[in-house]
């Protein structure tokens, strides 16, 4: 497979230059992040861009920074760096769970968190993970800046709230409360395959070890990544030792999630996967939350 003719290629070194390049090139211009999804689409001619604006040299879009307990991850930070960052352990460890099993080593060297969120593929790990841990996205255009929660940014598969003239510059995470933990797990047809279903849990505990904040997010859905609100509500007040309450909550989460049938899994099987994965990630998130803050 070979791309259709591409007229222009720009390799800006700053966000401002990238925005200017986009303005100069006009319609059918695409930002290229790590290229591990977009290049496939370009080679298959699903997308035939007139202009490509490659963000690989925009240094300000890379890296993980810790500020006042919160975390800022540049949109062009590759999976490899997220998978290796122990500073995320505890509250935001779900990001490491997800990033360390995306694709393969080569993909993790190039693929980026921002690219994955902007692509919002149905079988992707970053979208549900970022919704689950309460991520916000910072977007910049020539007109200004705005910040959106991941669950507002991510719509149906391959759809986001990003306008054509915007760059996602970073994802940010708030300072977590002391006893917070998260986890992500996916199920695919082979090891580290694209997820048929992926589930992320975030648990915040009070001083008595009871859940006071719960978020559950599910990926692999025809509706796009979604929170499982009914399951979240059922976890409030529950403690890690309350096995039957956790099981009930994850059953509720699965039952209340709309699932589709396709060649990888039928709707009922997807619900079963959601239930089992949710149980695993909730249990892991409880354990991580109980350990308290690392930093």
């Amino acid at each position, binding site marked *: 497979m070979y791309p259709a003719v591409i*007229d222009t*290629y720009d*390799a800006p070194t700053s966000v401002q230059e990238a925005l200017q390049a986009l303005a100069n090139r006009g319609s059918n211009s695409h930002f290229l992040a790590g290229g591990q999804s977009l*290049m496939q689409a370009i080679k298959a001619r699903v997308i035939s861009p007139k202009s*490509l604006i490659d963000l690989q040299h925009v240094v300000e879009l890379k890296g993980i920074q810790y500020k006042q307990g919160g975390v800022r991850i540049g949109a062009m930070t590759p999976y490899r760096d997220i998978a290796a960052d122990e500073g995320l352990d505890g509250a935001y460890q779900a990001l490491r769970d997800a990033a360390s099993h995306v694709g393969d080593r080569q993909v993790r*060297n190039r693929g980026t968190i921002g690219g994955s969120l902007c692509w919002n593929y149905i079988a992707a790990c970053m979208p549900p993970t970022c919704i689950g841990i309460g991520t916000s996205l910072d977007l910049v255009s020539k007109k200004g800046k705005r910040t959106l929660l991941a669950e507002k940014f991510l719509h149906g598969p391959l759809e986001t709230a990003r306008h054509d003239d915007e760059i996602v510059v970073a994802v940010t995470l708030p300072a977590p409360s002391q006893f917070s933990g998260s986890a992500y797990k996916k199920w695919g047809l082979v090891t580290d395959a694209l997820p048929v279903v992926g589930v992320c849990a975030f648990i915040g505990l009070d001083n008595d070890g009871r859940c006071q904040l719960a978020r559950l997010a599910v990926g692999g859905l025809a509706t796009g990544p979604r929170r499982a609100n009914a399951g979240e509500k059922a976890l409030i007040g529950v403690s890690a030792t309350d096995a039957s309450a956790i099981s009930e909550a994850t059953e509720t989460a699965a039952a209340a999630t709309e699932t589709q049938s396709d060649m990888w899994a039928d709707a009922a099987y997807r619900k079963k996967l959601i239930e089992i994965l949710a149980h695993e990630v909730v249990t892991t998130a409880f354990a991580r939350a109980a350990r308290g803050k690392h930093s």
Partner: protein
Amino acid sequence: MNKEISVTINGEAYQHSVPIRLLLVDFIRDIAGLTGTHVGCTFEGVCGACTVHLDGEAVKSCLMLAVQADGRSITTIEGLAIDGKLHPLQKAFNDHHALQCGFCSAGILMNMAEFVRKNRKSTEEEIRSALIGNLCRCTGYAHIVDAIKEVAGMPGKSA
């Protein structure tokens, strides 16, 4: 449509005007004439046969455009042995009969050369996990894993 690029491959500078749509793997094979880098799946980027080092990092050269490598340094399988001395992985692949048809070998060696540089003492599970991005249709991986273990396995556990 075309863009002038300069790319260093295995220490040699290549300066060419290339179509923007030219894939890096095709630049390496057709323009630089280095055909050790293979094209397997051609589309999805799942087979790993085209893996090269881009400034030392293992990447799939079919998922990049040649213009993206402008100003950068690439190492291909032809550059893995230095002054005729095989890389330890290459020697281990020979010793363990870790290849049959050889189609996947270049990509596996390039991926795992980066892996062993970063991971000197790995479990078999870690080695197998690191191989996910490379398909081999002959060997069943057992001999490949043995060869990698010899270079980067846990002490006392190497095959």
